[in-house]
């Protein structure tokens, strides 16, 4: 419990900054919605005449693109990207922070098991992410109500917003396993930016080639917003894969961390 509180306190500032940033991104996007709808009335009709391949290339789904939900999806991809960086930062710093600041000796000579240490740190990161998501969700929903010109399905809106949390959880798990395996991480930011962007680009590759199987390669592609809007649910196979990735990464992290030699500096 004491470790949990200590870690939460350490994350407090960054959680606040990240939450505000995510809300700013979504607020920025939402603020354009009114002018967007005004502009697009005519265009919508025009678009209907164009081939499906072209629309797909831009990710335009005719039914949804002009609704607030469709518009939200665009902003959401940036929010997800930012959120992934936040989660990756948290995950990567969990163990590497102790090594870098040379406090591992302090913590690990206390009467606690390494499993307890990792569990508490993991919980703290989890709480930080969940808090971010709760505040973000509240703010985003509020904003959507402010700018929406017509009624929209709130439960789909929430489903869409929750994808941020799921992607974050996957990256949190990835971050932890990296921080446990790599002996010494000098700059958390470098590692996390590199990983997140690598997967982001991987996602861009797979979306153009259109092959279903390639979507498994990037967590950014696990949640197809068009599918969610249409079916108001997630794709089970990707949820399962995401879950497996998380369990494997976290499980392996516990295993490796328990056996790991903590070297002096």
């Amino acid at each position, binding site marked *: 419990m004491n470790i949990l509180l200590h870690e939460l306190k350490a994350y407090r500032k960054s959680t606040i900054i990240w939450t505000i940033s995510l809300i700013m991104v979504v607020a920025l996007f939402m603020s354009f919605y009114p002018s967007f709808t005004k502009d697009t009335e005519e265009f919508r009709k025009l678009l209907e005449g164009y081939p499906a391949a072209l629309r797909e290339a831009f990710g335009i789904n005719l039914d949804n693109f002009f609704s607030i939900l469709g518009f939200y999806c665009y902003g959401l991809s940036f929010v997800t990207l930012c959120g992934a960086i936040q989660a990756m930062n948290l995950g990567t710093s969990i163990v590497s922070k102790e090594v870098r600041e040379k406090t591992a000796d302090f913590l690990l000579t206390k009467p606690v098991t390494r499993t307890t240490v990792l569990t508490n740190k993991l919980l703290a990161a989890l709480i930080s992410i969940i808090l971010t998501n709760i505040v973000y969700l509240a703010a985003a929903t509020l904003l959507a109500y402010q700018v929406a010109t017509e009624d929209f399905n709130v439960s789909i809106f929430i489903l869409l917003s929750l994808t941020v949390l799921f992607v974050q959880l996957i990256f949190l798990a990835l971050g932890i396993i990296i921080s446990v395996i790599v002996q010494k991480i000098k700059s958390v930011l470098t590692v996390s930016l590199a990983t997140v962007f690598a997967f982001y680009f991987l996602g861009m590759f797979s979306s153009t080639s259109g092959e279903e199987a390639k979507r498994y390669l990037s967590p950014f592609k696990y949640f197809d917003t068009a599918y969610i809007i249409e079916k108001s649910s997630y794709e089970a196979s990707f949820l399962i894969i995401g879950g497996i990735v998380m369990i494997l990464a976290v499980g392996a992290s516990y295993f490796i961390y328990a056996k790991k030699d*903590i070297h002096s500096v």
Partner: protein
Amino acid sequence: MNVIEIKNLTKTYGKARGISDISFSVEEGEIFGFIGPNGAGKSTTIRTLLSLIYPTSGSATIFGKDTVQFAPEIKKEIGYLPSEVFYYDNMKVKDLLNYSASFYKKDCSKRIRELAEIMDLDLNKKIDDLSLGNKKKVGIVQGLLHEPKLIILDEPTSGLDPLMQQKFFELLEEENRKGATILFSSHILTEVQRLCNRVAIIKEGKIVTVEKISTLKENTYKKFKVETKSTLDPNYFNLAGVNKLEVKDNLTSFLFKGNINEVMRKIADIEITNLWIEEPDLEEIFMHYYEKEA
């Protein structure tokens, strides 16, 4: 009862440094010195005891419990002070000590205040702003605040001024009187000589000897210096047990280990003007162990 028992402990890092086949034990209530030069394996041994690193083979027990298996349980009663202390950024001394105390299921606030007073430590300062010596003091308080039964110190005195060092040793002796066992690793012999009952000498990852400080001195050689009226024949003291014989004008000096009566009889037979017989200090014993194979 043995508080620490190390059996055939080996830790290798690839093919490089490490410790091999180390065995010794530390009895309850003693202050045990662990000496050797830099890189001999002191920290590796200590870090293995604390299960910060895991043995390649062999094992160690503390309070009769295996150090790997029962690590958290054992650590309740261990206080550890590393040679270099680094603590979390952005914390006050007080916060860090309270955080440290929160790991032990007892109220340590009184002890924290006592220790801080003894060590002359300002609890309200930020750790970032402290000098190296003051950070060290935080480390000392941090290691002792839960009144551990076993105190493990890894080259603890660096960065402390002589006055603080003195206070720190008094503190350790006080803890020892109250029943704490102390494992004290160092390469500074005088402090080991001053504080410890027994020592283990480690060299290149192996234990050279484990002795009581007093026996260590007894069982080794004595330094003889004999001044005579005329220069002695260099072969005069040609006895078994004589080492490093040097004749310089009227002064003959040598080291001797063995039955002292034989030398005394030899000396009685000649006309001497002055005689010195000295106990070697730990430094010389230490050098002795290190030179033997060099």
